[in-house]
């Protein structure tokens, strides 16, 4: 589904990804974890073609990502910081994205789910961070693509919306989709993900299920397992 071979990326002199290999099979929820600056967002943006790698090959559904835009029809992406053009209304933004991609009626259901109806006629610049994130979620989930990439999806959400988001993710998984998530909220990751990929210094340090990680690090719970990796490598 997604295969990455020998991915290298430097920003200036600062190497972010150094020889990363990763294969993600179809179906299931994958969490990409790692300390700040370990290259999670760079990895995701490379898959999306927003960051151009220095070396390496990325294939999504067998299509090489380089100089290609067509494969993005099969990806729904939730960006990390919901920065939208501030002088657009919520309604207009939804209509515009539909116009640019394809028509769908799923947005009405999602708007209702996240209780966004009162905000439809408001400009995006006037919305709070959490509300922007909900709009972001609507834009991401309204298309029915086989690969969903969520970069810090929980940012700014209230508890009810968080529960709805989890339900939404599970519903998409039940349809056989592949979901790629990055998050710093360990309890969220533990709850939703089937498999985790741990990035450290631009390489994959660990790939497997949470229980495998616990046995590998000899720790009783997930949060401490992650912490022990970080302590062992930075102390």
């Amino acid at each position, binding site marked *: 589904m997604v295969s990455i071979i020998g991915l290298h990326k430097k920003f200036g002199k600062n190497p972010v990804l150094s020889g990363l290999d990763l294969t993600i099979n179809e179906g299931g929820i994958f969490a990409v974890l790692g300390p700040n600056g370990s290259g999670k967002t760079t990895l995701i943006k490379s898959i999306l073609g927003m960051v151009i790698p220095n070396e390496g090959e990325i294939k999504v559904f067998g299509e090489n990502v380089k100089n290609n835009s067509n494969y*993005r029809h099969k990806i729904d992406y939730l960006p990390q910081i919901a920065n939208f053009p501030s002088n657009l209304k919520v309604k207009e933004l939804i209509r515009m994205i539909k116009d640019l991609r394809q028509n769908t009626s799923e947005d009405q259901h999602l708007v209702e789910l996240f209780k966004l109806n009162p905000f439809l006629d408001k400009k995006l610049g006037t919305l709070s961070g959490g509300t922007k994130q909900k709009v972001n979620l609507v834009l991401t989930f309204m298309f029915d693509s086989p690969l969903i990439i969520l970069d810090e999806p929980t940012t700014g959400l209230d508890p009810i919306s968080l529960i709805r988001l989890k339900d939404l993710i599970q519903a998409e998984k039940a349809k056989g989709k592949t979901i790629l998530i990055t998050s710093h909220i360990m309890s969220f990751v533990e709850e939703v993900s089937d498999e985790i990929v741990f990035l450290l210094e631009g390489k994959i340090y660990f790939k497997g299920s949470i229980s495998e990680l616990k046995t590998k690090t000899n720790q009783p719970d997930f949060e401490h397992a992650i912490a022990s990796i970080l302590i062992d490598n930075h102390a």
Partner: protein
Amino acid sequence: MLKILKYSFFDLMRSRWSYVYFAFYLLLGTVLLFLNNDLSKAVITLMNVIIVLVPLIGTIFGVMYYYNSKEFTELLLAQPLKRSSIFLGQYLGVALSLSMSLILGLGTPFVFYGLFESSAIWDFSLLLVTGTFLTLIFTALAFNIALSNENKIKGFGYAILLWLFLAIIYDGLFLMTLIFFEEYPLDKLSLVGTMLNPIDLSRTLILLKLDISALLGYTGAVFKQFFGTSFGLIVSFVMLTVWVVLPVLRILFKSKRKDF
């Protein structure tokens, strides 16, 4: 690309600045006509304003739009759209909305004044055509600067410098070269020098069309010989087109390799 163009264009059309720009030209055109009462003279005055102002507005607007729509661009980049169509669409959106403000703002008062019955219609059209070319050129240059500079302040700085250089400093250097080498035949050099700066090229093109080349002295005669012919006119427009095409190609080249 057309969809991006449409959204950028309407986004700008709704912004206050397009109206301010439009209103400014409307006012300028109306005032000049009432004060001058002579179409040809009004065209000359307009030329002096346009030659300096259009590049400045094109540069500033181009840089400003690029930095302001960064979020919009990032949103678009994650969609199944080609990079070339995103950036070309945005560029054309800015350039066309600026050109429209210029053409409508200046055109309206002149049409009411009775442009169509006047012989100045060709001079006036040439003025609008070169104005549009200058908008296309300087917006493209501005996009180039913004694409190469992540830092907004630097980007604005370089953009202003570019304008200052082409609108003012270039002429100064050019003049100094001419004085320095005055003992040599300079007609070829000054022709090439004029061709290499789109602002100078536009100014010369309009001045010669207005038949006041006598003001330019000996070089004027050489220029008249060159630009006055249809060959010269064609070469000049080819040059202006090259000035549009090269920066646009660099926009495409640069945007393909940029990380967002």
